C-alpha cells in the first residue's frame, strides 16, 4: 500500500524505539531487581549466625485445650509443618512443643533472647516454660490473619533456663480446603532461637518484603488507579484507561488481605471474597488488554460478566469444604484466560506495523513478566514448588501495574501535548484568518468608499454639465451681446475645469505639456501666428495635480488669447523647463506690448490680474514684462 506521508527517518525511528525500550527496560529492571533482592534475602536466615539455633522438630497435637495437652497422644513432626500434608483436615488449633537449650552466649552480658517464627498461619500463641509470652491475636473466629507476618517472641530472661526450655506454640489455622490459596493454609515454620537484636532484624526484613512493600506499592496503586480513571473519564476514546484504573484499585483492595489481620468476618468469608475478587480483576485485565488493542467483543464482555457471577455461585455450590479445589480450578482457568488475552493482545499489536511494534516490545516484556509470575504462583498453589518465604507476586504484580500505568500516563501526556499543539496551531490559524477577513473587509470598505465617492463626483459633474452647462451654453449661443456670450463661454470653461479639478487624478507633467502644446500651437496657427514651442519631451516623470493642471491651462489659455486678440504679433515663443521642485513656462511674443495705464500699471483689461491671482493660489508667481514695441514676456513659475 502506498504511503504518502513522508516516512520518518531511520535515525528518528531508532531514537523513538530506544526511548521506549529504555522506559520499558527501566520498569523491567526495577521489577527484576526487587525480585532478586527479595530472593537474595531468602537464604539470609539467621540460622548460620553464631548464637542462633534453628528448631526443626516438635511434638504436635491437635487440641483446643487452653494449655499444652500433655496427656493426649503426641506425634513428632518436622518443621516446617504444613497442615495440608500432615493434617489435611485440621482447622486447628494445633499445639506444638519445642524443646531447646539456649545457645552458649558468645558475648557478655548474655543478650536478650527471642524466638523468631517466620510463619505461623493463621496465628499463634506462645508459652515459654508454661508462661504465656506471646499472643498473635484471636485464635477463635474471626481468626487473626497473620500468615504473612513473621512473629518475634521475646523470651524474658527470668523465664529462661540454661537448659531444657520448653516452647509451646498453639497455632490456629485453616485446612487447605478452607482457603483459596496454599499460602494461607495452616502451618508452622521452623523456629529460630537467638539474640533478640539479630532476629528482630530478620523479622523486619521479612516484614518489609511480605507486608510493608506490598502496602507501599498498593498505596501507590490507588492514586495511580484514580489518575487512570480520571484520564479515562476525560478521554472517552480511551475506555481501556477506565478498566486499567479499576484493575489497579481492585488489586490494591485485594492486596489488603496481606496486611489486614483482623477483618470483622470469619476466614471462610475472607477466602470467598478473595477468590471472587480475582474473578473481577481478571475480567478487568482482559477488558483492558482488549480495549487497549482496540478490540471489542460484546460476547466476550458478556462472558466475563457471567464469569464474575459464576465464580461466587460455583464457590457457594462447592461449599466451604471444597473451597480450595474450587478456587484452584478457577485460578487455573483465570490464568489461562489472562494468558490468552495477553497472547491475543501481543499478536494484534504486532500486526499493527511499526506503530504497533513500538508498543509491542514494552508491553511484551511486562506481560511476559506477568506470565512468569502467574506461572510461579500456579506452581506454588499446586505444591510443585515449596512455599517461598517471600511472595514475589504480591509486590511485583503491582510494580507491573505501575509500569503499565506510567506508560499510559506517558501516552496520555503525549496525546495532550499533540492536542495542545494542534489547538495552538488552530488558534493561530483562526487569528490569521480573522485578521485577513478584517483586512479584506476594511479594504472592501475603503474601496467602496472610493467607489461611492467617485460615483458621486461623476454624478455632480454630470449634473453640472446637464444643468448649469446647458444653461450657460444657451446663453453662449443665444445672447445678442458678444460680451455676455464670451462671459458665458468663459463661465462654461471655468465650470468644466472645475469639474475636471474635482474628478481628475494627478497627471504626468509630460502629458500636460502635450495637451498645452497641442492647444496653443493649434490656436496660434489658426490665427496665423507662428508658434515656436520647446519643452523637454523625454525623462519627465513628475506629476501635476489636477488643480494645478487646470489653473495652468487657464493661465496659458488667457496668455494665448491676449496674444491673438491684442498683440498683433506674428511670432510666439514658448519655453518650458522643469526643475526638481518647480517648472517654468515662458511665453514671449513679438507684438506691440501692453499699454500702460495712467497710473503706470499694466492694463487690467488683459486679464493680467487674474493670471497673477491664479499663480499665487498655487504658491507660484506670474511675472509680466512688457514695453510698447518690445512685445510681452510672461514668466510663470509653479511648484511641482
Amino acid at each position: 500500500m502506498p504511503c504518502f506521508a513522508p516516512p520518518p527517518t531511520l535515525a528518528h525511528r531508532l531514537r523513538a524505539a530506544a526511548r521506549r525500550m529504555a522506559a520499558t527496560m527501566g520498569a523491567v529492571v526495577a521489577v527484576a531487581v526487587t525480585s532478586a533482592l527479595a530472593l537474595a534475602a531468602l537464604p539470609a536466615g539467621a540460622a548460620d549466625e553464631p548464637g542462633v539455633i534453628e528448631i526443626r522438630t516438635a511434638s504436635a497435637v491437635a487440641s483446643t485445650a487452653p494449655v499444652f495437652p500433655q496427656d493426649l497422644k503426641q506425634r513428632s513432626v518436622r518443621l516446617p509443618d504444613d497442615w495440608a500434608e500432615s493434617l489435611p483436615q485440621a482447622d486447628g488449633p494445633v499445639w506444638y512443643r519445642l524443646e531447646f537449650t539456649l545457645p552458649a552466649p558468645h558475648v557478655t552480658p548474655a543478650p536478650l533472647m527471642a524466638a523468631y517464627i517466620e510463619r505461623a498461619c493463621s496465628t499463634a500463641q506462645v508459652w515459654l516454660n508454661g508462661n504465656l509470652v506471646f499472643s498473635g491475636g484471636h485464635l477463635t473466629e474471626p481468626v487473626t490473619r497473620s500468615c504473612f507476618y513473621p512473629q518475634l517472641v521475646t523470651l524474658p530472661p527470668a523465664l529462661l533456663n540454661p537448659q531444657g526450655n520448653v516452647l509451646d506454640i498453639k497455632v490456629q489455622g485453616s485446612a487447605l480446603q478452607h482457603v483459596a490459596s496454599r499460602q494461607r493454609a495452616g502451618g508452622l515454620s521452623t523456629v529460630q532461637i537467638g539474640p533478640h537484636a539479630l532476629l528482630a532484624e530478620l523479622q523486619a526484613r521479612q516484614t518489609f518484603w511480605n507486608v510493608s512493600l506490598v502496602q507501599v506499592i498498593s498505596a501507590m496503586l490507588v492514586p495511580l488507579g484514580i489518575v487512570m480513571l480520571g484520564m479515562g473519564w476525560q478521554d472517552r476514546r480511551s475506555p481501556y484507561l477506565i478498566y486499567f484504573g479499576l484493575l489497579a484499585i481492585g488489586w490494591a483492595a485485594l492486596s489488603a488481605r496481606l496486611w489486614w489481620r483482623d477483618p470483622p468476618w470469619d476466614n471462610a468469608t475472607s477466602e470467598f471474597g478473595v477468590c471472587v475478587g480475582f474473578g473481577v480483576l481478571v475480567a478487568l485485565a482482559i477488558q483492558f488488554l482488549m480495549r487497549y488493542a482496540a478490540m471489542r467483543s460484546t460476547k466476550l464482555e458478556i462472558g466475563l460478566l457471567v464469569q464474575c457471577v459464576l465464580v461466587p455461585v460455583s464457590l457457594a455450590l462447592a461449599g466451604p469444604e471444597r473451597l480450595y479445589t474450587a478456587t484452584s480450578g478457577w485460578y487455573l482457568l483465570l490464568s489461562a484466560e489472562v494468558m490468552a488475552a495477553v497472547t491475543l493482545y501481543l499478536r494484534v499489536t504486532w500486526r499493527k506495523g511499526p506503530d504497533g511494534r513500538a508498543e509491542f516490545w514494552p508491553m511484551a516484556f511486562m506481560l511476559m513478566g506477568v506470565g512468569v509470575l502467574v506461572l510461579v504462583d500456579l506452581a506454588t498453589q499446586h505444591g510443585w514448588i515449596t512455599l517461598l518465604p517471600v511472595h514475589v507476586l504480591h509486590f511485583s504484580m503491582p510494580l507491573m501495574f505501575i509500569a503499565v500505568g506510567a506508560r499510559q500516563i506517558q501516552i496520555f501526556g503525549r496525546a495532550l501535548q499533540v492536542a495542545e499543539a494542534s489547538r495552538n496551531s488552530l488558534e493561530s490559524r483562526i487569528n490569521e484568518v480573522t485578521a485577513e477577513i478584517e483586512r479584506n473587509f476594511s479594504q472592501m470598505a475603503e474601496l467602496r468608499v472610493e467607489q461611492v465617492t467617485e460615483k458621486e463626483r461623476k454624478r455632480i459633474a454630470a449634473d453640472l454639465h446637464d444643468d448649469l452647462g446647458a444653461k450657460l451654453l444657451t446663453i453662449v449661443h443665444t445672447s445678442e451681446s458678444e460680451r455676455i456670450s464670451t462671459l458665458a463661454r468663459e463661465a462654461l470653461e471655468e465650470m468644466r475645469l472645475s469639474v475636471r479639478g474635482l474628478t481628475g487624478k494627478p497627471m504626468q507633467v509630460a502629458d500636460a505639456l502635450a495637451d498645452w502644446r497641442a492647444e496653443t500651437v493649434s490656436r496660434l496657427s489658426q490665427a496665423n501666428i507662428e508658434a515656436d514651442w520647446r519643452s523637454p519631451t523625454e525623462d519627465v516623470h513628475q506629476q501635476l495635480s489636477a488643480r494645478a493642471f487646470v489653473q495652468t491651462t487657464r493661465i496659458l489659455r488667457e496668455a494665448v488669447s491676449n496674444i491673438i486678440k491684442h498683440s498683433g504679433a506674428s511670432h510666439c515663443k514658448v519655453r518650458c523647463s522643469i526643475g526638481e521642485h518647480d517648472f517654468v513656462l515662458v511665453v514671449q511674443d513679438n507684438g506691440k506690448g501692453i499699454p500702460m495705464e495712467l497710473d503706470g500699471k499694466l492694463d487690467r483689461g488683459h486679464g493680467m490680474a487674474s493670471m497673477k491671482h491664479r499663480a499665487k493660489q498655487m504658491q507660484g508667481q506670474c511675472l509680466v514684462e512688457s514695453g510698447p514695441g518690445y512685445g510681452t514676456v510672461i514668466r510663470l513659475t509653479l511648484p511641482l
Partner: protein
Amino acid sequence: MNKILLLEDLPEIRAWVKALVTQVFPQAQISESARVHDALALISAERFDVALVDLGLPDGSGVDVVAALRDTQPEAQSVVVTIHDDDDHLFPALQAGAFGYLLKEQPREHFVEQLRRISQGEPPLTPSIARRVIAYFAAQNKPQERPQNLPHVSLTDRENEVLLWVAKGFTLPEIGTQLNLSRHTIADYVKQIYRKLNVSSRAEAALEAQRLGLFRR
C-alpha cells in the same frame, strides 16, 4: 451631403447647430430629433450622410445612436456634438464609431471650421485621446490581456508613429511636415485609426456578448 440627422435635446442649441449646419451644407435636408428613441426610429426609416449626435439625452446616450448608425449605415459619418470634453465621454463614442467630435461652446467660426474639416475627411485628434488609443492597442497586443479568440486588430507602425506624435502635442499639419507626408495622408491615418478602434471594440463587444450567452449558435 444631402441628408443630415441632428440629435439634440435643447431647442436653442438645436436651432443654433442647425443654423451652422445650414451654413456649411446649404443644400442639406435636416431631420431633427430630441430623443434617442426618435433618432433610432429615424435611422431605421431613412439613410443619412451625416449625423450630429449629442451624448447626454433625456432617454439615454447618443453613443447608442452612433453604434446603431455604424451597424446599419456604415457609410454615414457620425459626429459627436457635446458639452463634455473629457476622455471618459469621448473615447466610448469613438469606439462606437464616431468619426469626430465638436464641443458645443466653441465660437461659431471654430465650430464651422471644424465641421467643414470633418466632412472633408479630417477627423480631430487630441493628445489625450491619442494616449488612450495607444494604451488601448498596447493592451490588445498583450496576449495575456486579450480575450481568447479575439480577432487581432493592430495598428501599423506608421499609424502608431502618428499617434505618438499627436500624444506629444504636435498638430496634424506639424506631423505631416515631420514625416514628410501630406495633410491628407495624415488625415487618412487618423481615420484608419478610428476605424480600427471601432472594429476592435465591436469584436470585443461581440465576444463579450457571446461569453455572456447572448448569442446561441
